């Protein structure tokens, strides 16, 4: 029983409560950086790192943090880890850090982290919080991967920088601003349709 609980904590973020397509929070970064797959995955991993570390630290200190000033404390902890990621990427992957630009420091105000920290890590044990953070982080990363895959393939005709579609046949629209909205909208619609079908089937079986 214990084991299934841990597993469901982990899966929860990936599918059922996926932060992007189900809860629709933390959208800004996900639309802005997904013009190619490399940036999408980089952003996803940076975000996952900050999420795991903040949830871990906050759940360790959840009994010490005074109730009244918890939000400023959460913000400071999240901002500290965001700064660490920023400095690390600047030192080791300067190309990625340039491409992500202002969206790297903006991890701090990403509602996903604040939301999870407030609603999960401040009430649960460190192990559960880490599992939740990894699940949410992966849930965020796979959606970013899909969006960036579609946008890179159609917008610039490449996949991880390799040319797949000749330049004359690409649709530049997808790598510019409106493309992100359209791809995300269609992804949301598709997920809603699939989940509706799945629940309908479950209902029939019962």
């Amino acid at each position, binding site marked *: 029983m214990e084991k299934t609980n841990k597993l469901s904590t982990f899966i929860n973020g990936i599918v059922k409560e996926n932060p992007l397509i189900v809860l*629709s*929070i*933390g*959208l*800004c*970064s996900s*639309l*802005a950086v997904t013009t190619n797959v490399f940036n999408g995955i980089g952003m996803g991993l940076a975000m996952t790192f900050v999420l795991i570390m903040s949830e871990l630290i906050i759940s360790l200190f959840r009994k010490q943090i005074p109730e009244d000033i918890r939000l*400023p404390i959460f*913000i*400071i902890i999240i*901002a*500290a880890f*965001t*700064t660490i990621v*920023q*400095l690390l990427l600047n030192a080791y992957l300067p190309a990625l850090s340039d491409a992500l630009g*202002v969206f790297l*420091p*903006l991890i*701090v*105000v*990403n*509602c996903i982290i*604040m939301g999870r920290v407030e609603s999960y890590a401040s009430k649960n044990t460190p192990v559960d919080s880490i599992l939740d953070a990894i699940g949410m982080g992966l849930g965020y990363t796979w959606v970013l991967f899909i969006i960036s895959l579609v946008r890179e393939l159609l917008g610039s005709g490449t996949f991880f920088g390799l040319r797949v579609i000749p330049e004359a046949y690409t649709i530049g*629209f997808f790598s*510019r*601003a*409106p*493309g*992100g*909205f*359209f791809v*995300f*909208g*269609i992804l*949301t*619609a598709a997920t*809603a*349709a699939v989940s509706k079908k799945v629940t309908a089937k479950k209902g029939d079986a019962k």
Partner: protein
Amino acid sequence: MNQYVSIFLKSMLVDNVVLIQYLAICPFIGMTSDTGKATGMSIATTFVIILATAVTYPIYYGIMVPLKLEFLETLIFILVIAALVQLVEFYLKKSIPGLYSAMGVYLALITTNCAVLGTTLNCISKNYNYIQSLVYSLGTACGFLLAMVVMSGVRERMKSSTIPKFLQGKAILFITAGLLSLSFLGFSGLIK
């Protein structure tokens, strides 16, 4: 004078904060179901964006640069913004209760609005001087207001129209945002 006008127009239309730069999508999707609410939220945000830029810029150049603390900008800026929003809330509650009751609910949400932190960070990375930064933040804030009001207007009309079944809910909002964004793309090239 000319350069200020061009910074203003560029930040408001060409690089519209929501539709082109993808900042502050959360309030754009979450708060636009009603024009009144959307306007209240955007006016409160406008105020905070300009105030935040006016405060963080001197802190950056007056305190952080001499002490070589530039690498802490994210941490310090978010704290300054959070404190600032809190102060504005206290001030309004005590002195202008009428405005507080209209704006107060939105103020708490604005701390985590990425447009605020984004604008203050952009002013630093674009190497603007103080007046240019203020004009830039004013333009960004007006761009936000414009996007919010247009979107809420479109949503009011959408209530009485038939939407394809598979697009109902959030999906249609993103498609609408995409179309709006497409029209704002038309402004690119307006200012070099």
